[in-house]
């Protein structure tokens, strides 16, 4: 598409109406170079023409009235002028400059929101993204998402540092290799949605990796898994404790009961020992008594009686009586105790049973009391359990994040690999396109400098990259401007030949540094091509042999500035 016309309107008044021609287009700055310092040719607005075109292509327009270094000090005169007067910039693009069959009209003003005008063929598109997308549609006839329209056209309007200094790496310094790959392949006419997808995936991968770095600060996945299993054990333990925990409401009664049982046990034990002693005594004395009965030895009794008689003369009891007492006592006693013995054994047995029962009761009660705690203990368990559950939830969430992130990354990688394979399979096409392009490029560079430049591709893990090499050695930096021009001209020839949709105009600022000879050649070449080369130049820098008037489309000076403001 060619650039046919640029209009600057202030309400109903037309400030500038610039028509562009095929071939070379000069925007001439009439300020003489040798004039005093106050008028250097700056500020007349020759570069602004380039920027206004760029603005219509969706640039933010700040470079029209703002210094790149001193952003906070806008050229308020220009800004106010543009806003207060509701200035509208419009450009017309045509498919063929001499015989147009298709026209695109783009209009923009500098006002925000409701008063914003941002039109493509009369359709106002307020959203910047939609606007850009629409431009890509009408100009490049494509729906692919990547590269972006602004990226595609950045080599056509070379008004800023990267665009003026680099041949192919025309984007800002933050642009990634994936972005460039999409752009280069688009330029070569191999634009696909896969590239957009690849770029999206690469961005996503970067984000995901960043996210994992953040996750790593909280702990690696393996550590989290370890912590989780530990925590699960602990929770299980606590759950068990909670399950077996029984609140004993009768705690104090149970304590009393236990005390009573112990008391009874004590009593029973001493009773038992008493009975057992009695039993052993009975058994023992039974033997003795039996011995005595069999002997019926009364000699002891006799000698006792005799002695007593000698001591106490008036003894009431007779000797016979004493012997009878003695024997009867023993026999009866014997009879009695043998009778008592089974009874005694019975009660001992009973007592033993009773003691056994009491012991069991005691054990039961003590166990119950030991196990059961009070409500506070249960509360402590529940609080602990809650805390552990909270930590578990936290870790679970982290684990989930890790796993989903890992999954996502591996998916991205798989997709990237398959896309890269797809792109690689296009390698043949890419190489053939580059060969085609080099035909024009080497010829063009030869015409301009007598040197042969070549474009070639490099593949790294991120994708394709394009580089320009000099067949005879490294290109010298001084020739960069001419080199860029050669590239841009060659591209237009190449794109025309392969019928790749492109813009037929090149705007190149600061061409003053190029030597006269080269400017002459550039003018010649530009005029011979089916293209437009639009350059702002100081009149003094134009070589004398060039008929300026023929190519001049706009003349500016200190008294005739672009916006006609004083």
């Amino acid at each position, binding site marked *: 598409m060619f650039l046919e016309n640029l209009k600057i309107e202030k309400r109903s008044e037309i400030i500038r109406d610039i028509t562009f021609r095929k071939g070379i287009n000069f925007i001439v700055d009439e300020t003489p170079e040798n004039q005093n310092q106050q008028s250097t040719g700056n500020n007349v607005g020759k570069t602004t023409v380039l920027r206004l075109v760029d603005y219509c292509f969706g640039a933010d327009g700040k470079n029209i009235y703002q210094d790149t270094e001193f952003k906070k000090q806008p050229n308020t005169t220009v800004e106010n002028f543009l806003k207060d007067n509701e200035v509208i910039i419009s450009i017309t693009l045509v498919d063929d400059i001499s015989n147009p069959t298709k026209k695109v009209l783009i209009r923009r003003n500098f006002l925000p929101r409701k008063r914003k005008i941002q039109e493509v063929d009369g359709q106002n598109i307020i959203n910047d993204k939609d606007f850009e997308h629409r431009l890509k549609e009408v100009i490049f006839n494509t729906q692919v998402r990547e590269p972006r329209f602004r990226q595609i056209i950045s080599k056509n309007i070379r008004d800023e540092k990267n665009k003026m200094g680099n041949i192919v790496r025309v984007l800002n310094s933050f642009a990634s290799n994936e972005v460039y790959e999409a752009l280069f392949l688009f330029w070569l006419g191999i634009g696909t949605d896969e590239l957009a997808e690849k770029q999206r995936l690469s961005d996503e991968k970067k984000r995901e990796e960043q996210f994992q770095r953040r996750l790593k600060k909280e702990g690696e996945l393996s550590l989290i898994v370890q912590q989780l299993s530990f925590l699960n054990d602990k929770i299980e333990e606590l759950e068990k404790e909670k399950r077996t925990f029984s609140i004993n409401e009768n705690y104090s009664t149970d304590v009393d009961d236990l005390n009573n049982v112990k008391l009874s046990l004590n009593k029973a034990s001493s009773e038992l020992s008493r009975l057992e*002693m*009695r039993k052993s*005594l*009975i058994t023992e*004395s039974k033997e*003795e*008594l039996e011995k*005595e009965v069999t002997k019926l030895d009364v000699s*002891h*009794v006799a*000698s*006792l*009686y005799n*002695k*007593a008689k000698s*001591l*106490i003369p008036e*003894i*009431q*009891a007779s000797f016979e*009586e*004493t012997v009878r*007492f*003695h024997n*009867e*006592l*023993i026999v*009866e*006693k014997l*009879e*009695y*105790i043998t009778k008592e013995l089974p009874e005694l054994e019975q009660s001992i047995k009973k007592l033993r049973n009773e003691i056994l029962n009491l012991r069991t009761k005691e054990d039961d009660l003590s166990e119950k009391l030991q196990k059961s705690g009070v409500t506070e203990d249960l509360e402590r368990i529940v609080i602990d359990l809650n805390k552990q559950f909270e930590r578990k939830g936290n870790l679970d969430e982290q684990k989930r994040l890790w796993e989903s992130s890992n999954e996502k990354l591996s998916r991205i990688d798989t997709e990237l690999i398959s896309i890269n394979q797809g792109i690689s399979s296009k390698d043949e096409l890419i190489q053939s396109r580059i060969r085609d392009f080099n035909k024009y490029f080497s010829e063009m560079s030869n015409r301009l400098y007598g040197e042969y430049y070549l474009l070639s591709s490099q593949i790294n893990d991120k994708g394709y990259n394009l580089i320009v090499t000099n067949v005879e050695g490294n290109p010298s930096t001084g020739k960069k401007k001419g080199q860029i021009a050669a590239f841009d001209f060659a591209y237009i020839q190449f794109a025309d030949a392969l019928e790749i949709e492109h813009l037929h105009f090149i705007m190149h600022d600061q061409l003053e540094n190029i030597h006269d000879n080269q400017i002459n050649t550039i003018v010649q070449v530009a005029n011979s091509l089916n293209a437009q080369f639009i350059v702002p130049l100081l009149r003094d820098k134009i070589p004398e042999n060039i008929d300026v008037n023929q190519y001049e489309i706009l003349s500016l000076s200190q008294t005739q500035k672009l916006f006609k403001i004083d």
Partner: protein
Amino acid sequence: MILDRNIHPERDLYFLGGQLIDYLDKYEKEEIDFFDLYIVANKDQSLTMNLYTLVLDWLFILGIIKKGKNGMLQKCF
């Protein structure tokens, strides 16, 4: 025998009898079991059954106890 001139007066019937009288005196009931009294007498010093029965014979002679029912001893004071 009742009052020996030996070096262990606590083995004398006389002495032992006195002790038993003392216990009996403190005992509230009229009748006392043969063995219960024996257990009490055995507390202070070990006493063979033989010696114990002799002491009881001595107290009978003195008319301090007599035989009760079921082999019980009955106080006579």
